[in-house]
């Protein structure tokens, strides 16, 4: 059976809250924190269960091109990134982020590639299109 475009996640670290299905488009990014893969949506944080980000990346890599390994500890949903901070190597998920806004880190070596992919996804080669600097 193919992937149905949702992630089966849970709200509690011990799994006692049961499964929830979160559509891929709702996930901003996955991060690896305290040996757990965690999925961040706009308002929630879920536990994904994967024992390593490498394994999860291998699983999702060829399946959904919106997701990209931006850093050793981050896999971001590029279609949700609204602003790139080249100085601090961060991707924001809103155009006017505030200090409490969620963000993912982007390895300095990959930020140009992220920028290129975002421009491509937005249907333009213009570096300013939909991406702040």
């Amino acid at each position, binding site marked *: 059976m193919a992937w149905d475009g949702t992630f089966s996640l849970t709200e509690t670290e011990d799994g006692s809250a049961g499964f929830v299905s979160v559509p891929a488009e709702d996930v901003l990014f996955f991060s690896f924190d305290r040996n757990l893969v965690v999925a961040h949506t706009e308002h929630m944080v879920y536990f994904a269960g994967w024992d390593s980000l490498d394994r999860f990346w291998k*699983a999702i890599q060829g399946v959904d091109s919106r997701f990209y390994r931006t850093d050793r500890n981050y896999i971001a949903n590029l279609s949700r990134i609204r602003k790139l901070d080249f100085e601090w190597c961060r991707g924001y998920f809103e155009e006017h982020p505030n200090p409490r806004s969620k963000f993912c880190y982007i390895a300095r070596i990959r930020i140009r590639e992220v920028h290129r992919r975002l421009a491509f996804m937005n249907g333009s080669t213009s570096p300013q299109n939909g991406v702040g600097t």
Partner: protein
Amino acid sequence: MNWNGTINVTSEEDGHGAIHSVKLDDFLFFVLEERQILGHTADRVYRLPWGSLKMLANLISASSDQFEKVDKACLANVHKIKRLDTKLGIAHFAVNGGREKKCFVAESHMKRIQSFLEKLQRSETGSSEEMLG
């Protein structure tokens, strides 16, 4: 947030461990082998993202009433058990393409599983004699 009844798994059979969505009800049993949880359906074996059977048991018990712990390393879909060998401690599942799937049932869990199957049989056919060997 709702759960659509599927869980994310990976399949080594497709060569690159890509993510799949499989209905929880399609699984016959989950078994912990070499620190990996493998999920057996009638015709395939998948690897689950979770590495702890306790965590998986919590997730499943909060989301479904079909699975029971039958051994320290195994959770079985009791609704899919076709025959229970109480002497050898083996649960037999539906045969698919000539390959029978089975899992061990620990002695400490046997009576509980037996009475569960009897109840199930009673509610389905009114007889429990055929299933229990």
